[in-house]
């Protein structure tokens, strides 16, 4: 479960609020889509959730562990995929996955079965011994997703995970998200691909200028904006008026 309580973060000496009093609760078993225009505060919120940035006020609890007060236990609860997959480029894929597994203390048996399973699903088995830097953006993204999931945490936090993925990999990832939520875990991902959010998410959070302008199910959203048939049209209407 992810709980954000009155999160606020300002930049440039407090003059501009990147995130303004944001509260959100994502229950176990839910897939939540975090949408909003560029610069709305999605990445800052995700950074506060993952401990990359300290909030000015408010709190983040991941499975009940506060990310600032009980950082290490909170960090054990989630997997994070950043929006840039250019990490640890000089390591081989298998070295990177084992490094992450070591850091999260995954047993040999579990890591081997998870790496085998994900390598097959993402079609990366044959390239496990190649350095990440030889790969394209999409391939790197697959490696980062595998790395994030190798310790099988209950919460997934993914910042624009679909960027660069080929249709097969995107399908696999969506499938993995559904399986993970169905097993009683939480998934939060930010995206600009509204069709994906519409079809995949149980819960939608829409942020504009640092403020959460809507949170709820797709049906609730359509109920509030009856003119909009699709998420795209609703999104356009909300962001135009904001």
């Amino acid at each position, binding site marked *: 479960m992810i709980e954000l309580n009155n999160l606020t973060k300002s930049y440039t000496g407090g003059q501009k609020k990147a995130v303004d009093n944001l509260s959100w609760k994502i229950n176990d078993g839910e897939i939540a889509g975090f949408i909003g225009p560029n610069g709305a505060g999605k990445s800052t919120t995700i*950074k506060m959730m*993952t*401990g*990359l940035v*300290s909030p000015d006020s408010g709190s983040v609890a991941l499975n009940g562990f506060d990310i600032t007060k009980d950082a*290490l*236990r909170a*960090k*054990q609860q989630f997997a*994070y995929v*950043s929006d*840039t997959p*250019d*990490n*640890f480029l*000089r*390591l081989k894929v*298998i*070295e990177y996955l*084992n*490094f992450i*597994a*070591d*850091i*999260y*203390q995954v047993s*040999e048996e579990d*890591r*081997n079965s998870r*790496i*085998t399973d994900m*390598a097959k699903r993402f079609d990366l*088995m*044959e*390239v*496990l*011994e*190649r*350095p990440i*830097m*030889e790969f394209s953006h999409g391939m790197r993204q697959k490696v980062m997703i595998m790395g994030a999931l190798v310790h099988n945490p209950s919460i997934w936090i993914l910042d624009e995970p679909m960027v660069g993925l080929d249709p097969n990999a995107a399908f696999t990832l969506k499938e993995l998200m559904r399986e993970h939520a169905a097993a009683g875990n939480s998934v939060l991902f930010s995206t600009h691909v509204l069709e994906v959010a519409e079809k995949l998410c149980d819960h939608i959070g829409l942020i504009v200028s640092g403020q959460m302008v809507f949170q709820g199910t797709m049906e609730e959203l359509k109920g509030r904006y009856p003119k909009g048939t699709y998420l795209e049209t609703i999104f356009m209407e909300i962001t135009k008026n904001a």
Partner: protein
Amino acid sequence: MRKLFLLERTMRKCSGSMFANIGMGSISVDQNLSKSQRILQYIGITLVAGAAMFFIGRFSMGIFGQFAADGLHTLAYEAICVGLMLICLFLATQKALSLFFLSGDNETLIHMPIRPGMIAFAKALVIYRSCAIATGMIGIPILIAAQICSGGTVISFAAAVLVPLLLPVPPVFYVVLLSIVMMRYIQIGKTKESRASTITVIFMLIMFLVPQLLNLLQKGVNTGGGVEAVVESLGNVIRIFEYIFPTTFLTVGSLQEGGILALVLLLAAILLIVAVYAWVADKLFLKAILQAGHHGSKQKVADEKTILRYGSASHSVKKAYARKERQLLFRTPVFFLQSVLLTLIMTVLFAVLCVFLLVRMMSEITEMGKMELGSYEAYIWYGALGVVLLISALAVAFTHVTSTCISREGKNFPYMKTMPVPMKTQLAVKSRIGLYMAIAGALPFVIIINYICLMLSVSPLFIPVSLIASMSVLVLGNDVQMYLDCSSPILNWENEYAAATNNHLLGSALGPLLFVAVLMGIGAGCYMICKTLWLPVIAVVLVAAVAGSWMLHNWLYAKAVKNIENL
């Protein structure tokens, strides 16, 4: 021309501080500051550089005066010019590998409406500027001092300013041309780290001709002819480099009386070199990029057995983190070259020289060892300890592993922060690798000094004392470097060179050196007061050094962790 300078400026900004070459890696003007603040920063940098140049010039006057008095001023000019060109060769090699061979911007730039030759020229210009700052800061004060000593004319003084700025051209020409040719004809993709690192090492060794230089010097000293033999062997070494850098005789000629013709010819020669480079670069650079980007080698095909093989490694968090650090450090050619190889080469070269000198002086040391030391033992203790402290400070200052530990992370930094590993543990693992490198750099010399002290019949107690003093400086220097990089890391780099040269501060070891030296000084003062109690005094000083180091170590870690958490 505008495009050329625009390209040069962009590449320069991506490749780190221009002052890294002269041990002032963190000096740069913050572009976010207001205009007046920037002007103040420029004034500050100019004052620091001016003071450094003044001291170099003042120091050189005495040495050059001695050479001139012996009628060796031509040899001195040759030695200065060759020395500066060798420095350029050294600096240009590192920078060329990162800007040409291992650069990631070639593919992006080649699509732009710019002639490939212009890209190659802009890259060479970045390297030239970096070298010219180093040669200018070192060479101009030395040559002006030389002109003052020899009563030079206005033309000679102008040449003293101009020559250090022209000196980098031939070495930069060699290095960049060789880089382009290597890219064109040797098929090594930029992702083949181990091969690229090997090539880097070979490239450097060939370039510096170190073995020949050492051999020649050794021959000169072995002849037993004293100063004349050293002068002769120095002359021989310079002759070799004059073949490699044919402009040397024009450079030296322009610095001497009536050297205007030589200066004009030197300028013409430099223009010719630049023109040849522009022509060759235009012909070869595009083909070189296309060739370097082609990876035709066989790829390993992994399977489930691969997963089992790798999965059976150690699962300790600290070991895994240290392994990752080592892998990234040793596999990234620029990091390996800047942070590991330089320390190793310097240590090996100087240790070989020290051992050689020790062997030569063995009979004298043995004779001295037979004498009764009496009260002189305390002076030998303090003298030797001073040398141990200085060497330890230099070893830690020249090891750039810890001083770049956070900067090297770059885009990996967010992952550092999301890992469920305490930041203090991560920093400890990172700095330990740097500490081991610094110990490796200092230990051979500490052993040599201990050996000499034992030969001089100094108490064996000197061994633990010198080791503890050395470790205090090494640990504290390493901690200061870590603190500096945690306070001002470069994380958004495009070029690895920028990260690898961040915080190259010779001064990072001065604080710890001063701390231990002050304690030793207090000990020396106490000894002066109560002459017979010098061993207890040293014991007290050592306990204070260890306790103080421990406290400072913890304080620096706490500050570093706080800085990282605020990043």
